[in-house]
């Protein structure tokens, strides 16, 4: 489709502003009369607020207002909601405890806001916040899953007996149990999926401005989905009416899921801007981010896989406890259920699957979607079991996988998903070739002779992206539809603006979306602008997460483009006195096939807007919109293989090689796709080797800074070898599947499989720190 169309690795249009310091993030924005907010946060993980004395703080220099949790309750600001209803196996609904934006009576995690100080400067707000005196009565704490579910555990919410939010199942229990009874071999594992902190490099921030004459609010915020933020803030939190609230998400410095949710801080900023009748800015610092950004993962799982005598998988049985933290964040309930257990079939033909998921409250920061969201946890379960089975059954791990691969499509799994297309053997072949799998035994022997422990680990992941068919997710409890919208505006001079409900916070939409349009019309991408992230400009949209922007967002653009092109062809045919059916679009021109007659796009656009000579009855203008609702999820899949060496003296793991072979369907911009994979792999490897949020028994987050929480740094990671195999997705017009989360989904199992292979001990928890690996070697 031309040099800048689909498939071209063009450099990004948005980069110039980022490399010259001209990006515009929320904290970069200044407004006349701006005040600054600083939150007073609970130092305790569970406590009763006996009193709050704000008198001294009110008298501090520059203080404009001091507001407390009780005031937000008195003003009838709604509690934070969870937007996905999960039904327990006994038929009861999930047990959601109340979550006010600032705690009026009880705090349930360390860092929860109890009051906010608004002042003329940031420093004045911070100083005055220290003068707010809160008298707490400490309550007993349940700081992890085990502490929360044991008899006599402290109760977090009156609604949730035993701290259980729901006890949910999927699949056929009796058939699965029967398959286990009949099995020739059974493999089982206890798995901890470690808790992670998303840590987008830009901390969350909000600027709220209230215009009392218009009764209108504007909120600039670090959001992956500004329209959903506006909907929730208006429909559920009663702060502003939807038509009186503009939400802008300008440049956003990474999200990884953590900026999907509507947090207390932006609610409070919005509410406070009306209370003090001044614009209010809040910019979180990293310490606040650790304590208040929704965390990810945190599962305890027992998983078993049954095999027949031919080493075919006959059944999978999984029981998972998921920690949702102190309150139910916006999509938290769906992550360990419909985004997790529905992927437990992996790439394999497994006739029987049964999974039970029990989600619990603990006195910790709320847990919600983080890059991959449920799918990394599922992939880790399946791929650790496969590797363990290969060792137990004494067969090659690649061959055991291959024997069990799904090879015919569509394939209906026992856990809802209907895989549309794939070629799992092709990606495994590609990865094995890239890493010289056949040569590994010789390399291992050589390393052994040099005193090093070398291991190789495979991970064949599948995920569900392109989230999601609205009717399907609605039937599973989602409170929203997951379509996307687009509008194509052709200007009178022929340049084009694309308005999209997707939101780019690093993904490069300004380039890839323009590539689609430029390629179809045969014009340079410089002629196409992408408009996103502003509810005043784009009518509605569901935002960017779940690797949905290409599959859903671009499909909406595709549909709108078809409408625009159809109208433009009519105009061109009229102008050229030709038949509409004979018009083709090439190199920015509308041509009559088989002739030398043509009219350039700008002339067609101008004709549409002058309206001097249009076909009879045609409306002037050239602008079309479309909503696209996917018919199915998409199923990116691939094979990752990791070769590592462990120093038995120190327990340190170093990478020899990491190869990734992915099938994302059609690639829009291979350079950007590879960048997405690199970043995902880094997060998956980070989970496997480095990252882990740790709470002590009193509910204090021990890893609350970059000094204590190990973020992957440049010298922790290898360069990656990537390759692609392609089966085009039949479910959307572009054949795309999504690439944003794959790396984070597939990488961690490959790493742990490799280390456990190297050290000959399968009992190893993530993060596999040198200390843990050393103990796994030496006992």
């Amino acid at each position, binding site marked *: 489709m031309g040099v800048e169309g689909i498939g071209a690795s063009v*450099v*990004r249009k*948005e*980069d*110039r*502003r*980022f*490399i*010259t*310091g*001209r*990006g*515009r*993030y929320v*904290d*970069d924005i*200044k407004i006349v009369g701006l005040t600054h907010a600083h939150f007073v946060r609970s130092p305790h993980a569970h406590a009763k607020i006996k009193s709050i004395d704000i008198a001294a703080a009110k008298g501090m220099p520059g203080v404009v207002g001091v507001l407390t949790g009780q005031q937000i309750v008195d003003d009838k600001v709604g509690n934070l909601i969870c937007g996905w209803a999960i039904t327990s196996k006994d038929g009861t609904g999930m047990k959601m405890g109340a979550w006010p934006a600032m705690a009026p009576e009880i705090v349930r995690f360390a860092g929860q806001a109890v009051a906010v100080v608004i002042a003329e400067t940031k*420093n004045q707000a911070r100083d005055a916040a220290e003068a707010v005196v809160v008298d707490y009565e400490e309550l007993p704490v349940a700081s992890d899953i085990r502490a929360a579910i044991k008899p006599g555990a402290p109760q977090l919410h009156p609604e949730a007996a035993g701290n259980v939010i729901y006890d949910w199942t999927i699949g056929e229990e009796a058939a699965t149990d029967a398959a286990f009874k009949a099995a020739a071999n059974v493999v089982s594992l206890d798995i901890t999926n470690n808790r992670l902190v998303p*840590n*987008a*490099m*830009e*901390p969350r921030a909000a600027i709220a401005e209230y215009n009392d004459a218009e009764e209108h609010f504007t909120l600039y915020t670090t959001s992956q989905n500004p329209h959903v933020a506006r909907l929730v803030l208006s429909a559920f939190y009663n702060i502003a009416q939807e038509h009186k609230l503009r939400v802008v998400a300008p*440049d*956003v*410095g*990474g999200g*990884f899921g953590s900026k999907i949710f509507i947090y207390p801080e932006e609610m409070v900023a919005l509410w406070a801007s009306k209370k003090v009748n001044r614009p209010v800015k809040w910019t979180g*610092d*990293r*310490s606040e981010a650790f304590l208040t950004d929704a965390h990810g993962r945190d599962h305890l799982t027992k998983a078993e896989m049954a095999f027949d005598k031919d080493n075919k998988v006959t059944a999978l049985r999984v029981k998972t406890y998921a920690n949702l933290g102190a309150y139910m964040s916006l999509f938290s309930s769906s992550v360990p259920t419909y985004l997790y257990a529905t992927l437990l079939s992996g790439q394999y033909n497994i006739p029987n699957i049964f999974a039970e998921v029990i989600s619990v409250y603990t006195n910790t920061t709320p847990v919600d979607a983080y890059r991959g969201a449920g799918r990394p946890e599922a992939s880790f379960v399946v791929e650790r079991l496969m590797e363990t089975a290969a060792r137990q059954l004494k067969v090659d791990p690649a061959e055991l996988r291959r024997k069990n691969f799904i090879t015919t499509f569509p394939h209906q799994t026992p856990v809802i998903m209907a895989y549309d297309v794939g070629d799992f053997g092709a990606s495994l072949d590609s990865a094995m070739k890239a890493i010289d799998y056949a040569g590994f035994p010789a390399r291992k022997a050589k390393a052994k002779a040099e005193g090093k422990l070398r291991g190789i680990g495979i991970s064949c992941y599948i995920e569900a992206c392109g989230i999601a068919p609205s009717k399907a997710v609605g039937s599973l409890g989602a409170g929203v539809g997951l379509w996307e919208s687009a509008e194509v505006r052709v200007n009178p001079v022929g340049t084009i603006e694309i308005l999209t409900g997707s939101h780019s*916070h*690093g*993904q*490069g939409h300004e380039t890839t979306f323009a590539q689609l349009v430029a390629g179809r019309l045969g014009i340079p991408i410089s002629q196409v602008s992408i408009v996103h992230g502003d509810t005043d400009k784009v009518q509605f949209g569901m935002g960017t997460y779940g690797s949905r922007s290409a599959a859903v967002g671009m499909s909406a653009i595709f549909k709108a483009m078809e409408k625009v092109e159809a109208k433009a062809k009519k105009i061109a045919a009229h102008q050229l006195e030709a038949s509409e059916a004979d018009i083709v679009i090439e190199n920015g021109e509308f041509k009559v096939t088989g002739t030398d007659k043509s009219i350039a796009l700008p002339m067609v656009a101008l004709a549409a807007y002058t309206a001097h000579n249009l076909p009879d009855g045609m409306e002037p203008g050239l602008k079309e919109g479309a909503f696209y609702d996917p018919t199915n999820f998409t199923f990116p899949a691939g094979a990752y293989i990791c070769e590592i060496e462990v120093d038995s003296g120190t327990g340190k793991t170093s990478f020899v090689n990491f190869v990734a072979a992915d099938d994302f369907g059609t690639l829009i911009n291979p*350079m*950007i796709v*590879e*960048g997405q994979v*690199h*970043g*995902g*792999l*880094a*997060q998956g490897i980070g989970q496997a080797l480095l990252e882990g949020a740790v709470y002590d028994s009193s509910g204090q987050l021990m890893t609350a*800074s*970059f*000094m204590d929480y190990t*973020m*992957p*740094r*440049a*010298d922790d*990671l290898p*360069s*990656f070898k990537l390759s692609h195999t392609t089966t085009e997705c039949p479910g959307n017009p572009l054949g795309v599947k999504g690439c944003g989360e794959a*790396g984070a989904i597939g990488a961690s199992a490959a790493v742990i499989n490799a280390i456990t292979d190297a050290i000959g001990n399968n009992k190893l928890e993530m993060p596999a720190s040198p200390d843990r690996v050393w103990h796994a070697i030496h006992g």
Partner: protein
Amino acid sequence: MSTIKLTVNGKAVSAEVEDRTLLVHLLRETLNLTGTHVGCDTSQCGTCVVHIDGKAVKSCTVLAGQAAGSNVTTIEGISKGDELHPMQAAFRDNHGLQCGYCTPGMIMSSIDIVNRYGGKLDEETVRHELEGNICRCTGYHNIVKSVLDAAGRMKVAQAAE
């Protein structure tokens, strides 16, 4: 309050700030140079790296007063008009950035790395030298590629001058 005089991106600047003001806040809030970012509060992330008298420094770790009299260069000050610095161009051409938030600090640190090592840079050295800069998007793969590419471009540029 104190009056601080320094040179920023080649221009003489005088500003009255609280004594506790960090250099990064002087740049961002007083001088409106918002290309320098703040990503942590423990001097770990490197999104705030600027050059003070030609050397890469985390501007969150320096009081504005300590920078008095010095020559500060920020991300806004490294291109020559429309002509990008070779490091900026290399980051763009090698897709060395995604969300862009760590990018100014990465570029400022990387220029200093290349200046210090000249032509003797290899992947391992670049990875080691970038220990003070955290990126959550790229997995560093293309950042390392960018720095190595820029090292070559900067050598050529220096030879030409």
